[in-house]
């Protein structure tokens, strides 16, 4: 009876967003009289940082500093339609909608600036710091502040834009079932190292090493933060979390945080994250969705590591000590 070590690997291919009815998201962007910009959404930021990333996307598209953009994710009653933030779709779907809305707003902004500068809107560019000038002639310039004031008080125009992202719906081919469930995929590969106590069935995860391919990381620190948390969640799905441990029997299901198990700070594994960036063709600035994807590869990697350690395949989640022990008993009985 001893702690046995094992190592397992797994790789995944994960879709960004879904294909149900086209997966639409809409966004509205408008400027205040003083040239700050407001993005109105009904998409929710549940802590993953959607608001920050959307502010960056909007700012980059319009050509203003990120701090000038306020993102209102207030209300599904009043905001433009969004399917929601799930399915790793937020940055990609909402970001694409915001780019379109911001482009339309930028166009109006440049038209107003063109009238003020007596130039052609097509000849104007932004400096990213809050000014608009004629290409090649930086002295022929107007601030976005002045431009917004002029739009509001002189030209009677609304510097605003509407954005919509809709994936054309893909229907399965009748003969083959082939379809296009998603427009882009993120990828990940994980190597997990575990120790299994063959007397108690307990599993300790020693290390989890992940490589994530997520398109362009629009905010690298926040991406890293989400991937570290996701890696922990993957381990949690593999070994701890369930509301129905004896499904389909619902007895002994967790009712609160005392009974619903998750790895605590003392149970975490040494975790490594490597990010690969292969920009997606249709993502905002090349982004894909890392959200859900990042909590998946740890599960098969840990299951494989357990197999490597003690030679049993547990194919029901979570891999509790009880399930490991039962599998070990079955293995002995068969021997």
């Amino acid at each position, binding site marked *: 009876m001893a702690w046995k070590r094992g190592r397992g690997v797994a790789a995944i291919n994960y879709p960004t967003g879904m294909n149900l009815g086209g997966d639409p998201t809409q966004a509205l962007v408008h400027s205040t009289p003083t040239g700050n910009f407001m993005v109105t959404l009904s998409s929710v930021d549940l*802590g*993953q940082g959607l608001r920050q990333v959307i502010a960056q996307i909007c700012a980059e598209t319009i050509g203003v500093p990120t701090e000038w953009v306020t993102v209102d994710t207030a209300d599904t009653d009043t905001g433009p339609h969004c399917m929601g933030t799930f399915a790793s779709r937020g940055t990609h779907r909402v970001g694409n909608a915001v780019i379109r809305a911001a482009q339309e707003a930028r166009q109006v902004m440049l038209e107003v600036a063109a009238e003020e500068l007596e130039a052609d809107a097509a000849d104007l560019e932004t400096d990213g710091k809050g000014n608009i000038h004629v290409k090649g002639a930086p002295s022929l310039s107007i601030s976005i502040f002045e431009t917004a004031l002029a739009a509001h008080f002189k030209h009677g125009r609304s510097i605003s834009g509407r954005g919509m992202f809709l994936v054309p719906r893909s229907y399965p081919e009748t003969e083959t079932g082939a379809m296009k469930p998603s427009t882009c995929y993120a990828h990940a590969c994980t190597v997990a190292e575990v120790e299994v106590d063959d007397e108690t069935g307990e599993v300790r995860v020693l290390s989890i090493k992940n490589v994530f391919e997520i398109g362009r990381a629009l905010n690298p*620190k926040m991406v890293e*933060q989400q991937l*570290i948390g*996701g890696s*922990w969640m993957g381990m949690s799905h593999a070994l701890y979390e369930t509301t129905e441990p004896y499904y389909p029997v619902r007895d002994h299901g967790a009712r609160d945080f005392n009974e619903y198990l*998750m790895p605590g700070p003392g149970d975490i594994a040494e975790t490594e994250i490597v990010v690969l960036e292969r920009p997606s063709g249709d993502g905002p600035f090349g982004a894909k969705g890392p959200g859900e994807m990042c909590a998946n590869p740890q599960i098969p990697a840990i299951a494989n590591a357990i197999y490597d350690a003690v030679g049993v395949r547990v194919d029901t989640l979570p891999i509790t000590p009880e399930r490991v022990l039962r599998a070990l008993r079955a293995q002995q009985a068969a021997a």
Partner: protein
Amino acid sequence: MAKIAVQFTLNGSERAEFVESGSTLLSVLRDKMGDTSPKAGCRQGSCGACSVIVDGELTLACLTLAETSNGKDVRTAAGLSSGDVLHPLQRAFEEEFAAQCGFCTPGMIMAATVLLERNPNPSREDVIEAISGNICRCTGYEPIIRAVLAAARSNSVAA
């Protein structure tokens, strides 16, 4: 039901309220005194989101009757910064990206405050022990552990 008076120091100022007998410290802080930094995660003592410091002890405000705090010194995460200057723990949480949704953050910071007050140079194991009564659903704990260790380092540099 008859109301009872509770009076204690909250982050350095004298506060008093008439509350329903049986009110928890958590509900008095949040609903009567407007300090929403302690969060109501489970209201049954298992998540740590409501952690505050009462007379130097880490305390679950959801399990504490408000009246037992009479005359005591209550500190919450809202009282940590001085004006615009963040507490080293708050700064470290920011720099280490130790919050995502932020719901566990005030409780984590309270637990870490008590740790650092007692043990200015904690080991990684000390930090793990100190925050093990606090649940975080987002970060995987690693960034939080790093932040507390970083705050301890910056304190010892400052001292």
